[in-house]
């Protein structure tokens, strides 16, 4: 049933409830006609072809499908696509820019924070939400924040290191932006909250 979210045959048109959803995905406005039972994870993967969001357990256990929903980490296999109408979704595809990786991605690369890579998108988005709320987390705080994301390669040690690496990098970026006085409003804000966190 990979066509669930696509055009519905006319003979069923009377019976199948379809709703138009309009949402922002990775900063881009998207719209789709969906059946209410379509899960957000499936809209992203099969509808928008953003296959970086993985579906692992499909039973709300593993966190591989984690995306940010209005900035808050959620399991996209445990939300209906219709619930995203009017909301903002960030997937792993929205982390890097055309020219560079996000510091969290760099951290996972540098610290070998992945083996098979299946859990990695979810891990990185949960980590992003953590670092936005707490720019200088302790090891315990990182483990706590990622406790809803399972890694079957048992790579937790390096995943935690990767997040710490990213926290340092983001902190350093924020400081140098502040020092150069060249950053935009949002990075200046980041610098201020980072200084507050260290104080």
């Amino acid at each position: 049933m990979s066509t669930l979210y696509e055009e519905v045959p006319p003979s069923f048109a009377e019976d199948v409830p379809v709703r138009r959803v309009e949402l922002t995905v990775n900063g881009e406005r998207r719209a789709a006609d969906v059946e209410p039972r379509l899960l957000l994870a499936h809209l992203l993967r099969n509808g928008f072809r953003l296959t970086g969001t993985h579906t692992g357990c499909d039973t709300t256990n593993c966190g591989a499908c984690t995306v940010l929903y209005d900035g808050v980490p959620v399991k996209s296999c445990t939300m209906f696509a219709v619930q995203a109408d009017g909301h903002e979704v960030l997937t792993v595809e929205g982390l890097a820019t055309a020219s560079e990786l996000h510091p969290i991605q760099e951290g996972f690369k540098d610290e070998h924070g992945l083996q098979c890579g299946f859990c990695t998108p979810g891990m990185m988005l949960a980590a992003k939400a953590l670092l936005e709320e707490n720019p200088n987390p302790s090891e315990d705080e990182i483990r706590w924040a990622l406790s809803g994301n399972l890694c079957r390669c048992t790579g937790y040690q390096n995943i935690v290191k990767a997040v710490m690496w990213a926290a340092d990098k983001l902190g350093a970026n924020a400081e140098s932006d502040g020092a150069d006085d060249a950053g935009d409003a949002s990075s200046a804000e980041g610098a201020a909250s980072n200084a507050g966190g260290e104080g």
Partner: protein
Amino acid sequence: MYPSRFRYEAPSTVAEAVAMLAAVDGEAKILAGGQSLIPMMKLRFAAPAMIVDINGIGGLDYHRADPDGTYRIGALCRHADLEKSATLADAQPTIAAAAPVVADPLVRTRGTLVGSVCHADPQGDWASVMVSLEGAIVAQGPNGHRSIQVADLIDGPFQTVLAPDEIAVEAVVPAARGVRAGGYLKLERRVGDFATVGVAVSVEMSGGSVARAGIGLTGVGPATINASDAAAALVGTVLDADAVDAAAQLAAEAAQPRSDHRGSADYKRHVVATFVRRIGAQIQRSEQEAA
């Protein structure tokens, strides 16, 4: 996996939602956090004809104390809101202790206390907490509001006395007769697993002794257990070690655990008693620190 087909409605007021429920006579389910409902629909354990999504209804995400001390938690207050609350720990120590151990951090960003209580899973954490606090659920239906004690709300596994056209709009904890203390301890094999055992103990201290006590047990019976005899053993005492020990033994007797892959019945009973003792000791320590 995806659920059976359903009609989706997203009302903007509670009254509208009640009218929708009444129109389909028992074939609708309310969607709040959806962290239990959606998995059950995906597994086809639940196949409602209509989903009434209340997430668009404003003004239900609060948790606050009335001037008289009555505590109210709205139907869209998420577990994470309680976990991160700056005011909750002083006002409601048992709720504050439970919030960080419900499910996992991702489920906590969506799931709600009111929804969890109404889901009536014997392994749900919040029903035990609310039972220990003599808490109630306020339901709104076509004829107005009614308040139902959580102990009376749940009439079996995944079953409540809520009518098909009623919506639980808030959870209410009555004002304390004295100073509140309490805790919630949970044994789980890993984060996000169902509780092997969960124990909620809530007391209200007045003049150095216990004016009221409540003990709720999670995961050790066919439904949430109100260990009222165990709680009664604490009332009138100064929460000394003997009194706590008596309550711990009565709580273990009130438990109706079954041996399964999470542990033997004897083991679970032992954990119930141990948790009552640990929470008792925690309360004593914090009383001494405060004195």
